[in-house]
């Protein structure tokens, strides 16, 4: 009857509360740092008026969104209109449940996992939950009963569906290499070493898959250069055109929560999660409380790095056109990931412990094939296609006007 009342349950509940609190705070501060980085990249200061160096800016922003009038336009589908931001907000946060934050903790005689939930299908859970996010976007666009919002929702749906294929194939590469869907086992297996020195992180084994995963994660979280669903400058906002006040704020927060989820996901899948090589506290054997804190800090550091990378990319790259966006997914990333998937199958046969030289060779071969295909193919990447009729004007007859 009371079997489930274990110390694991207590740790899970405490961790869930802590993680949600930290997440909400860090999401707010992500927006602040995004604006700061935007300022620095453009030789400006960024927000620096509210509090010391603008440190209270996100609280002021939140207060502003909270106090603003929350307009529900008369022509919208009200239940769905209210549901859409709730879905996208919820979904962006539930994914954290399966992320292993800090290995195991020695609590009395028991070893408890620093993880809210330990489903056997951890990877599928995160993927599935993340896919529900597309409902929030599409419902937001649809229920607004506004053509521009609807187009925004459609764009978002097409983009997310297209990029979920290379994303899924990249995850499949990891799953094949690791032979498990449990995120904690994936982390654990990455803590081993090749020759006692080089950590068996997946990024070393599958650098190309890591790169493609990074690109698709950007697209999945609607970040620049793939933020067409909400291209506020040239595409009339997109799915959240009709939203205001706190509902708009929830869309905004969800985008940043998505960024953190994606970063955590990348860190766990490819960079060994809480593991940092050569430091004893971050090895799986260390189970004291200070080791757990060290592991959490390592994971947080990795997540921070990826968030910074996403912001850095945002202020570097221009937005893709929509046809370029879909062409990149279907003609670029999917063939590459299929090649990487084949490579991963071969590497399973070789075995993970022996596969490092083969993996690097395979990645080099895939890269060479991609470069050759890119160099040899005659299709223009951008601009005018080669097979269109000439625009050179023909001879113009001058003289009397035709009657």
């Amino acid at each position, binding site marked *: 009857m009371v079997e489930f009342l274990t110390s694991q349950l207590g740790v899970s509940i405490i961790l869930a509360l802590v993680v949600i609190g930290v997440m909400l705070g860090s999401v707010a501060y992500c927006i602040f740092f995004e604006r700061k980085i935007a300022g620095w990249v453009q030789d*400006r*200061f960024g927000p620096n008026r509210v509090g010391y160096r603008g440190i209270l800016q996100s609280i002021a922003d939140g207060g502003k969104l909270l106090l603003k009038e929350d307009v529900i336009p008369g022509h919208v589908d009200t239940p769905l209109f209210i549901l859409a931001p709730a879905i996208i907000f919820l979904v962006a946060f539930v994914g954290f449940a399966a992320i292993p934050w800090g290995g195991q903790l020695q609590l009395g005689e028991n070893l408890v996992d620093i993880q809210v939930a330990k489903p056997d299908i951890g990877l599928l859970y995160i993927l599935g939950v993340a896919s529900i996010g597309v409902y929030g976007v599409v419902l937001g666009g649809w229920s607004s009963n506004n053509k521009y919002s609807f187009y925004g929702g459609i764009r978002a749906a097409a983009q997310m569906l297209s990029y979920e294929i290379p994303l899924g194939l990249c995850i499949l590469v990891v799953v094949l290499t690791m032979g498990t869907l449990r995120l904690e086992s994936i982390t654990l297996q990455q803590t081993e070493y090749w020759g006692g020195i080089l950590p068996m992180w997946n990024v070393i084994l599958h650098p190309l898959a890591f790169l493609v995963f990074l690109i698709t994660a950007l697209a999945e979280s609607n970040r620049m250069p793939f933020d067409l669903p909400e291209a506020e400058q040239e595409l009339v906002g997109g799915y959240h055109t009709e939203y205001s006040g706190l509902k708009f704020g929830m869309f905004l927060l969800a985008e940043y929560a998505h960024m953190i989820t994606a970063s955590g996901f990348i860190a766990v899948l490819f960079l060994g999660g809480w593991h940092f090589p050569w430091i004893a506290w971050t090895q799986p054997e260390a189970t004291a409380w200070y080791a757990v804190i060290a592991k959490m800090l390592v994971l947080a550091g990795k997540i921070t790095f990826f968030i910074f990378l996403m912001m850095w990319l945002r202020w570097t790259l221009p937005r893709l056109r929509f046809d370029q966006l879909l062409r990149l997914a279907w003609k670029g990333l999917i063939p590459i990931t299929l090649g990487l998937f084949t490579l991963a199958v071969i590497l399973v046969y070789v075995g993970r412990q022996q596969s490092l030289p083969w993996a690097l060779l395979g990645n080099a071969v895939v890269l060479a094939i991609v470069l050759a295909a890119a160099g040899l193919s005659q299709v223009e990447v951008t601009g005018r296609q080669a097979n269109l009729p000439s625009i050179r004007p023909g001879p113009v007859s001058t003289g009397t006007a035709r009657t």
Partner: protein
Amino acid sequence: MIKDDDILLLDEPRLNAAERLYIPQIVDGMIVTLRHLGKSLFKRPITVQYPEEQRQLRVENYRGVHRLNRDEQGRVACVACFMCATACPVRCIHIEAGESAWDDREKYPVKFDIDELRCIYCGMCEEACPVDAIELTPHYDLVGRSRQEMILDKEELLSIYDGTRDLKPRKNPRITGYPGTGNRPEQAEPPKDEAKA
């Protein structure tokens, strides 16, 4: 019609294999933005923190709020010739002329209103003024709570002159033949046909 010679057909440069992957270009761009980021973090950004820091303006030719100059006897220097109102491209200057009580000029402005919200600060009034009575000052932070407040009348404009006299002394070219309209001592005789009867 466009002549054939004027049409320039450009071929887009072909990208090589590495460029078609876009990765090297993206890395290049990221290095550029990182350099700017580092510059802002470790050196000072170029922004002027406005209310605390003030920009260094060139007093001689900055075009801010207008002022209406006084002559050396403290009277309004304007002779109500309507040159500025005519030159004004947005018609923000409204003058009502009246017969002057002084014997060095025929007219003086009874009312002289400038709509500072309508003004585009082009400086044409300053160029047009024959007696250099209207000038633009380096003050740019003029604010008000209503539109009516931003229409400056003669007294306001004269008080702006009083406030900025030391910062930017009145220029003194005297173009008209009327004596005493400028601060420059009288040199030439007024033209006969324009002389006050």
